[in-house]
């Protein structure tokens, strides 16, 4: 008999279980893939450079993933038990012993879990290769990913399956027991308007102020390094957003529905009479879930924003440090050319630029002190003739403006304040200079800041030292061998500049030394002989690809979790709620109108969280996108997220309507 009961209740909630099982098997599949990737031999041979790092990361990631998936399963599994409350209570009334009902609930969970694992593991087998190839593609590695599941991973998967199924089934059995002990059938939600109305208004005020503070944050974020104001603002925004959203859900939205319901000219027209009440009831039931989903979506969007801008910043920083695969100066160019020729390296592009090194002094606003130092000068037309990537991150200048390129003290925060009144030895003072951080030929090729000057200024200016920079791009790397690199190691430092600062700039001089001075003095600068970044570039790309893979995986997983929670909430109506829809049909409400109610319910359930999440993630943009305009890519990322999320909304509507229509046919 138990078999029959279990079979019937499983088939009653077929659609809901299907969605739950799919979400679970997705999670299990991803978990399995992450886990098995760690000890995959092709990953190891393709990424030997990363060594154990990949294994560690995948292990950590898969445990984090498993942890959250488990919480999801506990949480959502509870929906089903709740849904069956009436059924269980009826069983008890019919005289079925309690332990039997609890056993039914236990077995039901165990069966669903087992099915999810079977599907999940097959998903893993089918998609492991695909995901592996995707990872390699993102990491730009040409290597065949071989399907492989280590015995260790497999054992671990089986363990996780057994333990998690046991624990989940026990939890659901305990939940069932508690239902049987409590007995009460329908919990009536108290309206408590005296509480909801003020709470709702307060919530709206909180959200509004949070948005205003966010606008200030856009401005204040750049002073974060020396003021506590932005931090206070962030804390306020987070608090106000989180609590404000809850209060709005708790008080404001029901109040609006209530007001609309009270306006008889609106509510006494057509199906509104019913649908307002229905929506209100559903809203009351789902407040905490909507809130939960909203905050998690906001978190997901904030994380995506953070990851995007973090990646951008690192990428930009990296690119400005190493724009060429190989760079050299006038002292090393011959040796390097010779070595390159030996290897038949395929040169894609080669560049050279003459520079002058001279002494300057100015008051630096960012460090708030007088600075005297040597500076490398380059003419405007030389600068412009270099590949675009060398200067696209610097401020734009025209042929009679100055641009000072300096190291960026912080990874993310550009201080884009113009520099003023820079004295140059033997040349006119530079009144204003734009700011930039992207060095042509790479920041490591220079010992100090660089200045791009108008052509005629460059022609006329004297120099303490003259140099020429060379840079190469290759088709398939520079092909320098280990032994050659050893040889080149001797040329790492081209020369040393010892600066004698006197009372005035015109009296100060630079002494060039070929040999490294025995003891470093404060005013000795080193000019690098060459810079080789091809290899690092590859690793950087691989790291970036791996990072992208993980971020994408986690955001999709989060999206699936949130979407399925909402869908299940919509599908799992109380019995009396779905019977009300059936009643509507009986008293002559057209199917299209009932469909309209379902559509409206779906739209609200999905729209409300995403709208509030977007409002909140605005603060994340303010935090990480300081001062710049909202970039196109971040809008694209957000749009992608919304589209995927909307897809869930549509699926949920279709499934929900199908379920109701089935009930109509009975």
């Amino acid at each position, binding site marked *: 008999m138990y078999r029959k009961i279990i079979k019937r209740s499983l088939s009653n909630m077929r659609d809901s279980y299907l969605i739950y099982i799919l979400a679970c098997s997705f999670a299990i599949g991803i978990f399995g893939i992450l886990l098995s990737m760690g000890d995959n031999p092709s990953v190891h041979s393709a990424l030997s450079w990363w060594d154990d790092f990949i294994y560690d990361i995948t292990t950590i990631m898969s445990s984090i993933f498993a942890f959250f998936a488990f919480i999801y399963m506990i949480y959502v599994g509870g929906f089903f038990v709740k849904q069956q409350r009436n059924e269980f209570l009826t069983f008890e009334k019919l005289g079925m012993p309690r332990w039997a009902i609890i056993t039914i609930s236990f077995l039901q969970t165990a069966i669903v879990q087992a099915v999810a694992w079977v599907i999940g593991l097959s998903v893993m087998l089918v998609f492991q290769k695909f995901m592996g190839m995707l990872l390699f593609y993102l990491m730009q590695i040409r290597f065949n990913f071989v399907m492989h599941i280590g015995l260790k991973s497999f054992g671990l998967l089986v363990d996780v399956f057994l333990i998690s199924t046991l624990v989940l089934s026990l939890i659901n059995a305990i939940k069932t027991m508690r239902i049987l002990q409590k007995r009460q059938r329908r919990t009536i939600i108290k309206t408590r308007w005296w509480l909801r109305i003020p709470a709702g208004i307060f919530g709206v005020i909180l959200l509004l102020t949070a948005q205003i503070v966010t606008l200030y944050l856009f401005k204040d974020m750049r002073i974060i390094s020396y003021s506590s104001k932005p931090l206070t603002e962030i804390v306020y925004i987070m608090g106000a957003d989180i609590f404000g959203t809850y209060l709005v859900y708790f008080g404001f939205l029901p109040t609006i529905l209530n007001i609309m319901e009270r306006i*008889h000219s609106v509510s*006494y027209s057509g199906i509104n*009479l019913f649908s307002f009440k229905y929506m209100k009831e559903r809203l009351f039931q789902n407040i905490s879930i909507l809130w939960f989903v909203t905050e998690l979506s906001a978190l997901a969007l904030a994380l995506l924003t953070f990851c995007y801008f973090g990646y951008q910043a690192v990428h930009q920083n990296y690119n400005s440090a190493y724009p060429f695969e190989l760079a050299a100066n006038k002292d090393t160019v011959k040796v390097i050319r010779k070595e390159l020729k030996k290897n038949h390296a395929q040169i894609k592009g080669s560049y050279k630029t003459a520079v002058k090194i001279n002494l300057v002094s100015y008051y630096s606003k960012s460090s708030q002190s007088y600075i005297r130092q040597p500076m490398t000068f380059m003419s405007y037309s030389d600068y412009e003739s270099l590949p675009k990537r060398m200067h696209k991150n610097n401020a734009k200048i025209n042929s009679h403006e100055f641009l000072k390129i300096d190291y960026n003290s912080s990874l993310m925060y550009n201080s884009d304040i113009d520099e003023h009144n820079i004295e140059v030895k033997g040349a006119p003072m530079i009144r204003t200079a734009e700011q930039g951080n992207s060095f042509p030929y790479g920041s490591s090729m220079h010992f100090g800041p660089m200045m791009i000057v108008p052509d005629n200024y460059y022609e006329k200016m004297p120099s303490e030292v003259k140099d020429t920079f060379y840079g190469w791009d290759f088709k398939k790397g520079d092909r320098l061998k280990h032994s050659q690199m050893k040889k080149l190691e001797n040329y790492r430092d081209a020369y040393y500049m010892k600066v004698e600062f006197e009372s005035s700039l015109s009296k100060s001089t630079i002494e060039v030394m070929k040999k490294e001075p025995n003891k470093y003095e404060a005013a000795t600068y080193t000019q690098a002989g060459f810079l080789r970044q091809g290899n690092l570039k590859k690793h950087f790309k691989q790291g970036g690809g791996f990072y992208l893979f993980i971020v994408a995986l986690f955001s999709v997983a989060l999206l699936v979790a949130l979407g399925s929670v909402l869908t299940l909430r919509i599908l799992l109506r109380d019995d*009396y709620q779905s019977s009300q829809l059936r*009643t509507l049909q009986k*008293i*002559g409400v057209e199917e299209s109108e009932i469909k309209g109610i379902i559509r409206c319910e779906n739209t609200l359930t999905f729209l409300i969280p995403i709208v509030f999440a977007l409002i909140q993630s605005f603060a994340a943009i303010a935090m990480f996108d300081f001062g710049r305009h909202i970039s196109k890519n971040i809008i694209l990322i957000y749009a992608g997220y919304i589209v995927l999320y909307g897809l869930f909304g549509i699926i949920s509507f279709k499934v929900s309507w199908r379920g109701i229509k089935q009930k109509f046919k009975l």
Partner: protein
Amino acid sequence: MQIVVKNISKDFGKKRTAVHAIKDISVEVDQGEFLGIMGPSGAGKTTLLNMISTNERPDHGQIIIDGLDLTQLHDRDQAKYRRNKMGFIYQSFELLDSLNVKENVILPLALNRSNKKLIEERFIYMMQLLNIENLSARAIDELSLGQRQIVAAARALINRPEILFADEPTGSLDSKSATILLNYMQMINQKEKTTILMATHDAFTASYCSRVVFIKDGVIFSEIVNPGNRDKFFEQIINMQRTIGGGDYFNVSQNN
């Protein structure tokens, strides 16, 4: 003839375990008639009413109302037709739990987007007529079964349907409420020429009809026309019930 039912039949369930709820029934109902449908539980009364009111489609046969073959209409058009011309009092009330009494009663008018003034007028009139004004702000789950039945009746009657379907409308009423409801049904039947089709297994309730058909096991067994005297009609109905047999099916407690 307003309603012509031609040879309809309906099965439930799959082949092997199929229930032949309606086997082959033909009925004709005049405009303004008050037709009773009697029969033991499971005879197919509810099924028959559901099919005539287009809530269910028959497997075979035709249902023609005012010359229009309803079985040929789309679900959508059927719903529209139902909403405009028909009123229902269901055996299981079919009230909406989330609405209060007033909202339940005015729902058919709201669905037709009648203006607010008309809604209020009709509502007050209905509540006074059925003597349930004091219930109007109550929630449905605070009502007794009898009160629910009257509320359901009020809802069915509020938009003055041309045809009223009533499935055991007095099944859960005390005799006083039952009499009020039946008198009202008789009144609208006479004054507004509303056609009424009422299923019941109660002889007293059936005695308000102008004609009663008896069905058993999905076929029409016989019919009696009201001779004009309710007591005499009541006797005839009781006798017919005895003839059909199986008195234990029947509920004859509510005579007065």
